[in-house]
């Protein structure tokens, strides 16, 4: 079966890559002011994964992420003002100041709420897919998670169930070789993650160079199969690299657990720059200007928004 994958629109791709990069750089800029009282986990350097995977998604497809989810939130088209307002703890935030950076959500754009407990959102994504399969409209769910999450037992329980029920789920492992500061060698008995996933009957691919176009292509193919109901879940492992510290905004290469050389190797392959380089300079700078405007407006919105009324403490404990 040959699957028609839509042509790449480099402008769109660049716009998203650039938006994520710049928005997080702005977060890092604001952070020392203590206006953002929320532990942020930046994806600077990892943007290609979210952007590549989300590019082929329909607006009504669903994504699910982790506490490191500014990127997938923006890649899926989440409301930027509401993102910044949430970081500021404002009433206009995407979770009305009750979530914070680790609990982003935007149900209007089918961005499932994220969690600070590693691995926890994976089965929730599967549960959403149960509903989508029943609905039968070709919608799919993408579950993003880190290499660390694959060590939690719930990951395997989820793979088994998704495969057993042939659910429309694309599993995306962002393998940055680190869980906080602990290298993968101390955590994984082997590197055979894709092989393992295949034993569930789930096709699995690996992208080791973070190439956003490859990621996009693999995601698009997997998703196209699911839309028709022809294929069940699929899996992509994307090697990537976190440029900043685990939580917070510093470059922590002096902390001793990794080398700046490694960073330089990954930076030489920076997908934001590479995709930007494919555009003609005029187009590129107008995209960049638009991105700056959008971010500036979002920050302004966050700054000017009110804090929640203290009474809001007790609302939303129960629904209905």
């Amino acid at each position, binding site marked *: 079966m040959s699957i028609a994958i839509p042509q790449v629109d480099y402008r769109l791709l660049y716009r998203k890559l650039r938006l994520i990069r710049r928005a997080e750089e702005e977060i890092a800029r604001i952070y020392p002011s203590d206006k953002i009282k929320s532990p942020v986990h930046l994806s600077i350097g990892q943007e290609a994964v979210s952007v590549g995977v989300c590019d082929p998604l329909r607006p009504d497809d669903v994504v699910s992420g982790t506490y490191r989810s500014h990127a997938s939130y923006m890649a899926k088209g989440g409301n930027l003002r509401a993102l910044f307002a949430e970081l500021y703890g404002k009433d206009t935030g995407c979770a009305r100041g009750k979530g914070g950076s680790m609990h982003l959500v935007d149900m209007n754009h089918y961005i499932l709420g994220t969690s600070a407990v590693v691995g926890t959102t994976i089965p929730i994504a*599967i549960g959403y897919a149960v509903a989508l399969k029943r609905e039968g409209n070709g919608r799919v769910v993408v579950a993003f998670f880190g290499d660390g999450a694959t060590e939690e037992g719930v990951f395997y329980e989820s793979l088994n169930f998704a495969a057993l029920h042939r659910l429309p789920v694309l599993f995306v492992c962002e393998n940055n070789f680190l869980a906080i500061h602990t290298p993968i060698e101390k955590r994984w008995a082997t590197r055979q993650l894709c092989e393992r996933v295949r034993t569930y009957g789930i096709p699995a691919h690996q992208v080791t160079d973070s190439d956003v176009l490859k990621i996009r292509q693999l995601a698009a193919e997997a998703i196209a199969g699911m839309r028709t109901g022809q294929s069940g879940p699929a899996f992509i492992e994307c090697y990537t690299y976190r440029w900043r510290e685990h939580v917070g905004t510093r470059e922590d290469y002096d902390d001793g657990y990794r080398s700046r050389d490694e960073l330089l190797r990954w930076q030489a392959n920076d997908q934001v720059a590479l995709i930007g380089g494919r555009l003609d300079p005029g187009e590129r700078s107008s995209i960049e200007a638009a991105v700056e405007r959008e971010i500036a407006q979002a920050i302004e919105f966050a700054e000017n928004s009110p804090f929640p009324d203290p009474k809001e403490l007790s609302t939303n404990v129960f*629904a209905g």
Partner: protein
Amino acid sequence: MYSPDKNGSDSQRLLRYVDALREGVANEMERDPRVFVFGLDVDDHKAIQGSTRGLQQQFGRDRVFNTPLSEDAMTGIAIGAAIAGLRPIHVHIRMDFLMLCMNQLVNMASKAHYMYGGTVRVPMVVRSMIGKSWGQGAQHSQGLHALFMHIPGLKVVAPSNAHDAKGCMIAAIRDDNPVIFVEHRLLYPTEAFVPEEPFTVEPGHARVCTQGRDITVVGVSNMLVECLRAHELLAEVGIQAEVIDPIWLAPLDIDTILQSVRKTGRLLVVDNAWTNCGASAEIISRVAEQTWQQPVQMARMGFAPTTCPPSPVLEQEFYPNPAKIAARVHQIVQPEVSWEPDKERAALAYQLQFRGPF
């Protein structure tokens, strides 16, 4: 047989607790296509002691299905399906197994509505059965409802009779929040009058089961039945116990209990669980906070503060029972007279013992 509503509508008939559970679920599944049932063993021939019998035949494999042994992921799946607009009922044959899903229940289900700023709802029911007797022992006997009562965002219900089993089940399914539904295995065969049509027993309303002036006795889940039997033993010696069934443990209707305690001046809470940080502690505390100007004698009974032993001799010691409850009440109400219920009468008051194998 305790039947809270025997003078209700014409459509009432005697129904067993287990069938009332099934009927409540079936009623809602008919009404609402979003409701589905899943969990280990829901579709086998034992059908969770019969409580899911026939549901798959009636509603199909998409709406009633078995799962792998993966309680943690299955709970997440229930949450995800609920967020997507379905209304899952996740069934566990033992409450002890909920310990495998605590992360999803405590860190996600209870918090999702709040921490996502009200943008999602998690309407799900977690059915779980407390086992008892016949050597089920350490890991098949725990009443762990207090762990869930501790967590804001969860509702907890523990119906004590067939009528409430159906009414609470329907209320739980219609509720837009996660509800931990606590069933007791020994209640399954007990009968009560239950309306045929769907009805709800709503959160936040306790029931005064017997009127009495001497002491307020609150019984949780199966212990309500034991308290009612103790009430009969006590009536024979002229002590009038006002027995209250809280029904819903979260939210808890403390007002009904308080009103009774203000009248009787005495309170005994009997739980189907350990007392330390238990439902009984919560009830006593709330009453104590409110009634300090009036002397109220208060006491708790529950599991012995040990792991549940299977040996029949030890198991007998482990649980409250009607004779022990009656003796305790008597001691509180008439401390000057030493009394124990007649052994034979007490034995009659006992719940029919479960006989294995199960």
